[in-house]
Each structure stands twice: as structure tokens, then as C-alpha cells.
């Protein structure tokens, strides 16, 4: 039983990490909390569903296509909404409010197009899972785990080794200095937003492999992303990775004892406890 809980924790942890990775990347470089992150996740899940089930495209291609479409759309939204705010040097709350507006808009669009019914990506009878040290793990869950971890590893490599990745880290560290040394900061922001949104979209698509989707999954996902990022120290990418797994473990072990409906509440209790006792597990201080 303990191993089953651990396995479940690792599977949902990989999703939480993916969400937190994008959230923390956007926060770290662009310095605002993207409240539309959950809506992007939702949009990814539904677009993946539409391409895969309605248009009958092979899943990996549908997933890549959906991610690219969602990320491009977010790039467009960035151009319309966030970029003018950046040029105006608007305060953080303006970004939060505008991202809430975008989240509401996207969520309503998804609900309108796909109705509020529960949708499922997988058809036919439930596949028997593999047995692993007494725990059951399905093929789709394995796909989720492998895909999520390899995407995060690739992205870390990208951030550490490529020129634009280094520019992103430089901008995150000190935007003024980045301008002075000739980093194209605006391009960096756009690339960041593109990749951050792509991560949320991928997370949504991967989740639909394992569970049913409905138009209300966006905000809980955002909450998970926020809590995982804060656990890991917001803006800290490896922290977001571990934060996601840690949160999932806490949740799964708690749900073992108390009813599953309380799951979202647990994340918040964890968040509040952390804020009160120790602002961040891996270094960076919360209070400014």
C-alpha cells in the first residue's frame, strides 16, 4: 500500500512539477504571477482532446500540435496584453489582474466550445496496469512520468547551455544589467512566456491521459503550481521540480488517511504552514 501511494505521488508529482516549472519560470524572468497559467493548462487539455479524439490524430503528434498552438496563442496574448504593460513599467498587481482577465476569458471560451461535460481521452476498456513491487502503474501513467521528466530535463539543459537560455537567466537575475550588456530583453520575455505556457499546456495534455477532464480543472492546477513553486522557493527552477514532487507526496499520503475531496484544501494548508514556519524550503526568501 505504501508503495502504491508512493507511485501515485510520483505520477501526480511529475504533473505538479511541470505546472510549477512553467509558473516559476514566468515569475523568475518576467516577475509576475501568471494567474492565467491554470487556464493555459485547461486549454492544452481540451485542445489535445479535440485533436486526438475528434480529429483522430495520433496522440504524440496531437500533443505536440496542441502545445504549439496553445503556446503561439499565448504569445499573441502576451503581445496584446502583457507587452504594453511592460513598456509602461506597470506594477505587479496590474499583471495579476490582467492575467485573471485572460484566465476568465479562456476558461469561458473552453466551456462554451466544449460544454461543461466531463470528457475522456482514453476509449474502450481500462488497460491493465503493470505490477511493480506490489503497486499498479498503468501504461499511460508511465508515459506521463517519462514525458514530464524528460521535458523538464531538456528544458533545464536548454536554460543552462544555450545562448537564449543564458540570456533568460541573466534577465531573471538583473533586467537592467541585461539591457546594458545587450541582451534583447523583450525577446527573452517572449521566449519565456512561450515556453512557460507550453509547459502548462503539456501538463494539461498529459493529465488527460490519466484522468477525465472538465472545464473546472484549471484553477486547482494553478493552485498546485503556486504551492509547488513556493515550496521550492519561487523563481527557483530546480526548487519547483522538487516542490512539485513534495506536494504530491504530502497530498497522496494525506488522502490515504482522509477523504479525497479534501485534496485541494491540503495544498493550501501546506502553503499556509510554510508561509508561517519557513517561507521557503530551498533558499529564496518569500517576504520582500
Amino acid at each position, binding site marked *: 500500500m505504501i508503495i502504491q501511494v508512493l507511485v501515485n505521488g510520483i505520477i501526480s508529482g511529475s504533473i505538479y512539477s511541470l505546472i510549477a516549472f512553467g509558473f516559476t519560470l514566468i515569475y523568475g524572468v518576467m516577475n*509576475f*504571477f501568471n*494567474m492565467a497559467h491554470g487556464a493555459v493548462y485547461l486549454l492544452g487539455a481540451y485542445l489535445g482532446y479535440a485533436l486526438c479524439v475528434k480529429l483522430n490524430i495520433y496522440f504524440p503528434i496531437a500533443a505536440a500540435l496542441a502545445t504549439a498552438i496553445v503556446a503561439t496563442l499565448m504569445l499573441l496574448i502576451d503581445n496584446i*496584453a502583457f507587452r*504594453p*504593460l511592460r513598456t*509602461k513599467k*506597470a*506594477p*505587479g*498587481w*496590474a499583471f*495579476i*489582474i*490582467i492575467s*485573471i*482577465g*485572460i*484566465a*476568465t*476569458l*479562456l*476558461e*469561458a*471560451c473552453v*466551456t*462554451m466550445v466544449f*460544454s*461543461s461535460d466531463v470528457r475522456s481521452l482514453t476509449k474502450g476498456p481500462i488497460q491493465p496496469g503493470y505490477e511493480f513491487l506490489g503497486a499498479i502503474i498503468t501504461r499511460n501513467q508511465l508515459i506521463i512520468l517519462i514525458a514530464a521528466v524528460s521535458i523538464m530535463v531538456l528544458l533545464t539543459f536548454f536554460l543552462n547551455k544555450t545562448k537564449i537560455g543564458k540570456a533568460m537567466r541573466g534577465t531573471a537575475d538583473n533586467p537592467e544589467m541585461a539591457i546594458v550588456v545587450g541582451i534583447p530583453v523583450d525577446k527573452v520575455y517572449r521566449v519565456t512566456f512561450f515556453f512557460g505556457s507550453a509547459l502548462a499546456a503539456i501538463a494539461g495534455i498529459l493529465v488527460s491521459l490519466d484522468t477525465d477532464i472538465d472545464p473546472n480543472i484549471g*484553477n*486547482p492546477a494553478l*493552485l498546485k503550481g*503556486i*504551492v509547488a513553486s*513556493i515550496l521550492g522557493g519561487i523563481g527557483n527552477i530546480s526548487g519547483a521540480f522538487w516542490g512539485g514532487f513534495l506536494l504530491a507526496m504530502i497530498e497522496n499520503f494525506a488522502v490515504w488517511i482522509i*477523504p479525497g*475531496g*479534501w*485534496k*485541494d*484544501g491540503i*495544498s*493550501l*494548508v501546506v*502553503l*499556509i504552514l510554510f*508561509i*508561517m514556519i519557513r517561507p521557503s524550503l530551498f533558499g529564496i526568501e*518569500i*517576504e*520582500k
Partner: protein
Amino acid sequence: MDLIYHLLTMSGIYVILTLSLNLTVGYAGLFNLGQGAFFGIGAYTAALLSIKLGFPFLIEIPTTALVTGLLGMIIGVPALRLSGDYLALATFGLGVIVYTILNNWISFTGGPMGIPGIPRPTIFTLSFNSSASYMLLVTVFALLIIVFMNRLTRSAFGRVLLAIREDETATLAIGKNTSKFKILAFLVCAFIAGIAGSLYAHYISFVDPSSFTTAESFLIFSMVVFGGMESIPGSILGATTLILFPESLRLLGIPTFYAAQIRKMLYGLLLVIIILKRPQGLWGKYPF
């Protein structure tokens, strides 16, 4: 005619909610994304007090406000250690946990089924069963709260809140206990939201968790931003416009499901436009 009464009643309730949120968001600069939670706590407290304990309206409404206010304060204390954007995150999480509690504590809150059969109030021999009389009752409450907020924001207390928003360190330096003022602002905000919750519960005569989601908090928040921060006429204008304007969709004969989604889309779009084009809101005076 009934539709007009209904709209005026709802406008009144939302004017109260928006005014109280404006105190924390607009005046004190505390980003509270959990107003829907306070609204919900108020509505549930009113429902439980009047059904389970049979409190008469005149005793029930101050008790509800007090309970909500105290809960708001207790919840507010850990959240207030955070500043700016982090407070927005914590209060957003708060909204999720309150929703989780309402949904899962079935023996106490009725879970997803909610609490039906909340009676319309009776004050002495006066009963407010007709929609016209209830509209009058709500209007009286709204007017009282407008007067109260008008006085409060011009008082020394209101000026300290403004000072905290502008420069907390300086306010601390001139000998004001800023934490105390911030907690008080949260208390007043939750207190008034409790009144609105009670009025709502008695009006709809049924409460369920789906009315108090984070979307609700975002809606009230958009009313504040749309009308204008730090402005009482702005809040009144913002709340009534955002209630009345989407109702015109109903007159066009669009089915309820689509009307609800279009309404959400309009809210989102309005929020984006207002931040980009007129960040101080329709009638506010807090630009960046």
C-alpha cells in the same frame, strides 16, 4: 417588473461586496482575491443560524457579520505577513480551501447539495416575502453601508490605510501599528461581506458551494477594478454595471448556458481592456 426587482436586489448585494473589497484592495492596497470566500462564509453562517438555530433576522445578521469578520481576521493574520503579490496568492488559496470545506464537510454544510429552505426575513411584524419589499431591504442596507464606508474612508483610520498603501515603512516610522490596521481592514472587509452573504442567502433561499468559487472572487475583484480603486462611487458604478450589462444578454434570448459563458468572457475582456486603457477604472483615482 420582477426582473427589475431581481436586478436591483443583486446590484445592491454586489455593491456591498464591492465596497468592502475596495477597502482592502483600493484603500489599503492589500490584494485580496478571497472575497468570494468571505461572501460564502457569510451566506452559510446565515443559513445555518436561521435554519438550525432559528435566529430571528435582526439578531442573525449582526451575528453572521461578526462570525465572518472574526474568521476573516483569523485567516487574515497569517496572510498579512505577506506583501503585495504574495498576499494575492495566499488569498486565492484561501478561496479554494473555503470552497473545499463547503463541498466536503457534508454533515455541517450539506456538501454539494447545499442548504435549501432559508426563509425570507421578518423584522418584528414586517415580513419581506415579496421581491419588491426585499429589494427595499437590500437597498436600505446598501445605502447604510455606502454612508458607513464614506465616513470610514475619510476618517483617521482610512487615512492610515492609504498611508500603508503608499509607504508601509514610513507609516510604521510615524508610529502607526500597520499590522493592526491591516488586520482591522481585513476584519471590516469580511464583516461587511458577511452582511452581503446573509442578504444573498435569504434572497435566493438556497446556498451551495458552486456560488462561492474563486470565479466569484475574481468577479467581485473585477467590479472593484472596473469601477475604480479608492473610489466609492466607482464601486457602486462598477458593481451595478457588471450586474446589469450582462443581463441584457438574457433579453436577447440567448440560452442560459451560453449567456453565462458570454458573461464570463465579457468580464475577462473588460478586465483586460480596463487595465490597458484606463487602469484607474471608470471613476477611480489610483493610476500607476
